[in-house]
């Protein structure tokens, strides 16, 4: 999946303008002209320091979101009902890890090593998509994640795939292709519940009610309070505003949910036929920031599991770094 529409920043970030001052104005002009012509920037090309910094953070957070995003669904691999769902879920979670790998590789082209990125994830310094700090409580949660979170991620990633940095765009093209398959699997599994027994329908409605707010949070705070600079838009690092993406998501997927007889826990949710925009109750943005800052229901657990995996695999990685010694053969 994933990569929410929100680029988290560390506290005490350097201001864009200060960074800008160090860039050669001639080179900057050429760089910006290339971007405005729709050219891709490649790893060896000159780029402003701030462009490199922002992109590194964006791609890194996206990569972390993939491997952390594998966890809530991963816990259901052993419980998926029936061969079809079991195989589809393993393959899906495996794809997410593959996306993580592609994205770490893309981010590495900007100069930060995979190990450094993983260390920053584990120390809490770098963030991942907020939505994975919520628990997947039942099988229906897996179908809601597979359908709606993957759908939301696609909206975001299709936009980003048109961005300016070549390695990221190429990774995203492949990722979007796989995500669209996840979306089909998620939709299929969700329909099975929506059209199933009363118990299955209740289970699905309950999951949808619980996930609605995190999904509304997914694209980040409303444009009126979002701190993204115009510069990032001009440099084609950020490709669409949070509200635009949220609106696009609601426009495509809310009708599909309503068609299935499902309800969404927001009485104000509707499409304004005059403006063509969706209107809704603002989700709790204080909660959003609280969860980003470690206060969500699963932040600790997610990082603990990731730390366990890193710790458990350390000896393997050590052995891979040291394949030099060919041992003497035993006598018998």
């Amino acid at each position: 999946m994933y990569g929410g529409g929100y680029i988290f920043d560390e506290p005490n970030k350097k201001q864009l303008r200060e960074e800008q001052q160090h860039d050669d104005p001639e080179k900057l002009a050429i760089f910006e002209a290339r971007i405005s012509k729709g050219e891709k920037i490649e790893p060896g090309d000159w780029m402003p320091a701030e462009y490199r910094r922002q992109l590194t953070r964006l791609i890194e957070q996206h990569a972390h979101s993939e491997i952390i995003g594998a966890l809530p669904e991963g816990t259901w691999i052993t419980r998926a009902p029936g061969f079809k769902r079991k195989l589809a879920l393993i393959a899906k979670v495996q794809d997410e890890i593959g996306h993580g790998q592609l994205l770490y590789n893309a981010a590495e082209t900007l100069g930060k090593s995979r190990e450094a990125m993983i260390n920053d994830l584990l120390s809490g310094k770098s963030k991942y998509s907020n939505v994975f700090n919520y628990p997947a409580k039942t099988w229906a949660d897996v179908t809601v994640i597979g359908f709606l979170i993957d759908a939301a991620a696609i909206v975001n990633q299709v936009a980003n795939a048109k961005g300016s940095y070549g390695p990221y765009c190429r990774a995203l093209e492949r990722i979007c292709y796989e995500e669209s398959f996840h979306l089909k699997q998620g939709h299929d599994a969700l329909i099975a519940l929506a059209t199933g027994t009363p118990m299955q329908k209740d289970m699905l409605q309950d999951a949808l009610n619980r996930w609605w707010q995190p999904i509304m949070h997914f694209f980040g705070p409303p444009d009126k309070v979002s701190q993204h600079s115009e510069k990032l838009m001009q440099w084609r690092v950020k490709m669409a505003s949070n509200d635009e993406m949220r609106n696009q998501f609601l426009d495509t997927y809310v009708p599909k949910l309503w068609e299935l007889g499902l309800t969404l826990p927001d009485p104000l949710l509707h499409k304004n036929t005059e403006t063509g925009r969706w209107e809704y109750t603002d989700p709790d943005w204080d909660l959003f920031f609280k969860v980003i800052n470690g206060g969500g229901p699963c932040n600790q657990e997610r990082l603990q599991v990731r730390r366990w995996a890193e710790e458990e695999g350390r000896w393997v990685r050590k052995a891979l770094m040291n394949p030099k010694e060919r041992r003497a053969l035993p006598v018998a």
Partner: protein
Amino acid sequence: MNAALQKAITTLITSMADDALILGHRNSEWTGLGPIMEEDIAFSSMAQDKIGHAWALYRILQEHLGGEDPDQFAFMRAAKDFTCCHLAELPIGGYDFSLMRHFLFDHAEAVRYESLQQCSFEPLQQLSKKVKGELKYHTLHADAWLLQLCRGGEESRQRMQAALDRCFPLAAGIFEPGPQDALLADAGIYPGEQALYDKWLNTIYPLLVNASLNLPDPAEVAPQYGGRYGNHTPHLQALLQEMGEVFRLDPTAGW
């Protein structure tokens, strides 16, 4: 086909399928948690293959031997009715254990499916051609990792040796003989467990030597039998409970 032979083939296929399902299930538990991302992806692929093999084998039972629907058979059966070996049941442990189990089991599978290339029961012979092609990559993967870890320093070599010592009696239990072996051999289904066991030992011995590992003396090792007769470790019960947790909420529902 007479009833006795039909029953014998059913017994063989059920145990092969149960092994593949249970070990595939175990190996899938590493998805998202592997020691490096590339390995995470590889191990997950092989887990999917195993579960796919199980599904295909259960379908043969259903289509040719009067068996149940594969989902019902796999997700609703009691532990005592499973005939997987103990090696497949054990929790994933560390990566050393999981990788050694993968090495020993996949070579056993490769030997078994090789022997089934000549199987006189056509559905099994047909399937074995496809499975053999996949297992080639599983054993390549296992062999490469075994060498890499055994040559990557003393800590990892020791870990792999300890894993081999622990896994070997369990792996020998894959080849638990049964009363149907002679009948199946006579009917040209497959050569029987003892023959496969000997062939397996001949395959793994040079690979282990090359990796500087000491194979425990097979004559001194008591294979861990019981699985083929429905006697299991407590781990299987827990695994099945988890595997069927959602399915059992309503076994008649479509999921």
